[in-house]
């Protein structure tokens, strides 16, 4: 599963983010879930395989990317910018550019907004508290949150939030205390509260059930389940393990996966968590002490990655790097099942075939070295006689799969090898042949527009100067930055070369535009480039300072904001309907205007 994007801040703004990292580990960013894994921006792009000593081709893992945003964070009308050095948050009206400065607490640093609403949460790093901002007002006295908290995930309905310490963003700080705590915050106006819950080791992301009644904290130990209604105080959250101590080797079925038959019956295990006297709160399903069940396990080794949770919160799926094993966890019964596929899994993604509770949910798995896409039904494919469906593309190289929010298409491609092709597979008529789209450059990341009619493909750049003399056109293209826009139904692709790496980007909620930021300080490139998703025409908006973040406001506002590096704080708003740019600089000074 790769890169779920990003139709504006509405998607990503649920998570506080102030840093970026490169990872090939999953961040749990499923199509229907708010990722909490933080910003992952491009790192080293692998453009080709290498040969191992034995002559077997060793290809690097697929590169997972979640292009996210630095501060500021967008609400519906306002943009919120934390300024820890001044102990303030600047609130910028995207229409009038009026700035209000508020002082929520000591060192407001990590900030997140409720999607589409002018509600922001900010962690005051200096005091270890959380402040709630409603419109332009600090709602009430700040709430205590877990020590060193640096991450926020907000439920889509904006009623609950989970605040935790994400060790991946620790930025060299000395760790003290526990990194197994999260704060569950009730954001209900007038009834705000915060409870501390013990979860598995090193939480990395949080997802919410689609009824907004529960959160699932992805940790190294497994998944901790927070059922909001059952939590009335500090407690230990029940943990469903995905890694067990005593493995029982699973045996892949000899059947070919392209037969459509299952390959292996899942091994069942109650991975219940042994809790020594702690209070377990689990939505009333189970409470009290639990005893670890028989140690029947699936495997050991690497930690599960690509963890996704179904919308109803019933199941979680994951994989392990370098393994063919898919893990299915029943979050209610705590039963873990696995399915061993005959090859190394390089990506997973969930697909909800409909919005009803009874509509089947599938997981798509990619086996790059087999050139196969495998579909498993949850949970049936993991039963003893469960079957799978598979599609083989022996002439193609696929390692990643991206499925959009609406689930119209699965996009198959690879970021690990220099293969400039994508396969577009309609999911509702999955038996038909995929549309193969040939691109001009290899792929760094793929993003789907909200309406899933178009995709934005970010390309890799080969080392070297594109303007060096004597290069062929192909070499110049390889050495250039760029992206492509692809019409997913017609297969038309347009390459746009850029003077700098296009990163990050957003797509507008109405699917009419995409924006990419182009920044190269050495060459003084400071551009927000807009791409019409109907005509594929690109238009540049020069910026006054190097851009460092972009996000969309509500569709009604019709505006994208671009934050820029400036000692006094600078942000530009681009009206995508009227091609108008307005810039405001000096957040602190603006906040002190008396009018």
């Amino acid at each position: 599963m790769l890169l779920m994007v990003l139709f504006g801040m509405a998607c990503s703004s649920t998570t506080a983010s102030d840093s970026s990292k490169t990872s090939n580990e999953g961040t749990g960013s499923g199509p229907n879930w708010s990722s909490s894994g933080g910003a992952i921006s491009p790192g080293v792009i692998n453009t080709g395989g290498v040969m191992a000593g034995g002559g077997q081709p060793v290809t690097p893992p697929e590169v997972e990317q979640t292009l996210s945003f630095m501060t500021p964070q967008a609400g519906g009308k306002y943009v919120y910018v934390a300024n820890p050095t001044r102990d303030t948050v600047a609130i910028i009206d995207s229409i009038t550019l009026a700035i209000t400065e508020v002082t929520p607490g000591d060192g407001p640093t990590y900030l997140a907004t409720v999607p589409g609403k002018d509600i922001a949460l900010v962690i005051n790093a200096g005091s270890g508290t959380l402040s709630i901002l409603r419109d332009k007002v600090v709602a009430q006295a700040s709430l205590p949150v877990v020590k060193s908290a640096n991450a926020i995930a907000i439920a889509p309905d904006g009623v609950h939030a989970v605040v935790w310490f994400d060790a991946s963003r620790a930025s060299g700080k000395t760790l003290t205390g526990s990194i197994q705590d999260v704060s569950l915050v009730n954001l209900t106006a007038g009834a705000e509260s915060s409870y501390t819950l013990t979860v598995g080791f090193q939480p990395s992301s949080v997802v919410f059930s689609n009824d907004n009644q529960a959160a699932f904290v992805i940790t190294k130990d497994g998944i901790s389940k927070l059922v909001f209604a059952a939590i009335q105080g500090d407690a230990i959250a029940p943990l469903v393990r995905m890694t067990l101590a005593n493995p029982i080797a699973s045996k892949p079925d000899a059947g070919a996966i392209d037969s459509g038959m299952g390959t292996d019956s899942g091994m069942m295990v109650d991975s219940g968590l042994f809790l020594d006297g702690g209070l377990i709160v689990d939505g009333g399903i189970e409470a009290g002490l639990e005893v670890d069940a028989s140690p029947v396990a699936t495997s050991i080794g690497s930690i599960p990655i690509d963890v996704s949770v179904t919308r109803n919160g019933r199941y979680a799926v994951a994989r392990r790097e370098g393994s063919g094993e898919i893990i299915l966890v029943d979050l209610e019964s705590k039963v873990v099942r696995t399915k061993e596929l005959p090859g190394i899994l390089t990506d997973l993604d969930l697909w909800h075939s409909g919005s009803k509770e009874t509509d089947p949910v599938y997981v798509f798995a990619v086996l790059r070295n087999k050139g196969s896409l495998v579909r498993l039904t949850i949970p049936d494919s993991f039963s003893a006689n469960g079957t799978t469906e598979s599609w083989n593309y022996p002439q193609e190289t696929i390692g990643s799969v991206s499925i959009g929010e609406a689930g119209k298409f699965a996009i198959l491609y690879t970021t690990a090898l220099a293969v400039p092709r994508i396969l577009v597979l309609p999911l509702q008529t999955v038996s038909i042949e995929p549309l193969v789209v040939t691109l001009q450059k290899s792929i760094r990341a793929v993003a789907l527009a909200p309406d899933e009619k178009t995709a934005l493909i970010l390309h890799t750049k080969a080392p070297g100067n594109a303007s060096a003399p004597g290069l062929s056109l192909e070499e110049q293209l390889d050495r250039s930055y760029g992206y492509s826009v692809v019409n997913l139904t017609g297969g038309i692709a347009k390459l746009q070369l850029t003077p700098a790496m296009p990163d990050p980007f957003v797509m507008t909620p109405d699917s009419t535009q995409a924006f990419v930021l182009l920044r190269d300080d050495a060459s003084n490139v400071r551009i927000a480039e807009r791409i019409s998703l109907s005509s594929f025409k690109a238009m540049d908006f020069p910026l006054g300072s190097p851009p460092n973040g972009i996000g969309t406001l509500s569709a009604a506002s019709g505006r994208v904001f671009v934050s820029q590096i400036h000692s006094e704080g600078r942000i530009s708003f681009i009206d995508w309907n009227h091609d108008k740019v307005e810039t405001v600089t000096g957040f602190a000074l603006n906040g002190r205007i008396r009018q």
Partner: protein
Amino acid sequence: MKYLALVACLPLVCLGCAENGDSPMKGSKGNLALQTIELGDRIAFVDTSQERVFVVDPGESQLVAKHFATHRSPLQAEKRLGKNQLLVLSAGQLEEDGEQAQPTRLTLYDPIMGNSPVSLDLPGRFTRFAQSSDGKFAILYYGESNTVSGGGGLYNPNDLAVVDWDKGMVHTRSIGSLGSKPREIVFSPRTTLFGRERTLAVVLASNYLTLFEVDAQADGIVRTVITIPLAPGGKNVMPQKILFDMERPAIFVLAEGSDDIFQISLDATTATSKGNDFRASLTLIGVGAVPSDAAFYGPTSDQKLLVVSPRQQQIVAINPSTGQSTFIPAPIAVDRVYVFKGKSPRDSKVEDRAFLVNQSARLSTVMFADLATIENAPSLAVESWTISSAVGEVTLLSQGLALLTQKNTNSQGEISLVNLEDRTFPPIESGGRIVNTWVETGARDRLWTTSDNRRLNYVDLVNPDKAALVTGEVVLDSVPSMLIPLPKASSDGHRYLVVGKTNSSNSPSFGDITILDADAPTRKTARSLKGFLLTDSLERGQP
């Protein structure tokens, strides 16, 4: 007509300019300062020592000085902008033994209409006033370096009095202070803003600005003042120059102590019972060094800004829409920019272009910039020329000309005419030592000089048929230190030139002026009025 005095000692009012310093009339009774102010077709002299105004109409066959008393202790006198009327601010007097207190007054004299002066008793002992460019408003304030006459009483230096001459109203306005007090007040052009015709006032103070709508109060509309801090990161910032872009609308501020241009954008908002119907937001646009000058260019609906600083060898083009600054390398550092519309030797299109000089360093290299292409092809858009003399003052003339003159006129050959389109620099030389220089613009573009051999010389700088320069000469009785061409023809159909000597401590004058025909000056038709400051002195008591 607009004229510029190029002699430092000449106490002329620079019309249309924001006042930067204190009035030359600063001080109280007994000061020898005599201020000269043209009032269209006649001339006024404000004698602070006598507390009296003298007005001479050169169109009258018999030259006489009509006179009337000012109120006590005149502090500042100016022509009312846009009118041929005189404004005099008088300090009045505190109550003393045997003398009643007199309020501070602003008096409007209309010598042409001959009406009785209109005096406004002011609600404070203000020491300065500023005017809107149309003369509709005046704002009284306590100038930063002025102290209230007499030294008595407590006052709030952030109180203002706003005079609406059309409505005949004076109302007070107290502005917020962020620790300083008003240093200068400038007015926006009168314009329709957010559906209402209005004039904005900007009060400059150390580290902040105050902005308010001037006419709202007279119209019975409550508006709050907007206070805008300008000191990022604790810098000490002194606003120096204000540019209004009323189309955007936005106000641009150049400030000493800041490497940024401050852009104050105004946006409509819902008016509240106590608030404004617009909001101000601030944007800082980096220009690399403390700017000394800036000018707009481009279409009115989307003006850009060209900014210069003597501290860097580059000029900066700013796009206010994006806050983007484009830095253009320049062969010299410049401190003044003059934008004009015209052709260039390489381009026959009439476009916005700039003439750039360094006056403070008196460099002899000047630059031109083609502003239409400066952002896309900066290296091609800028070219420099070295001329024969160092650049002092620059006066833009009509028909694509400019005049370069020197403050220091001891040497010859330091006056050059610049053809901005051809980019040629014909020098203007004199056979004698030039003592004083004046450039007249408006009714005609003419350079006036005086030499130490009592000769008044002139040259018409703009010659429609581009023939040889038209020159002339008049021998005077003495070398004048004051020269004022009147912009308006008198009742006899002639436009006059007034020359004379101003008072100084070294050579006190009783009022000696010579009147010449401004268009065809000759000694033969010249008339003199001597000792007019003593007019009716016996009848009115001590001179």
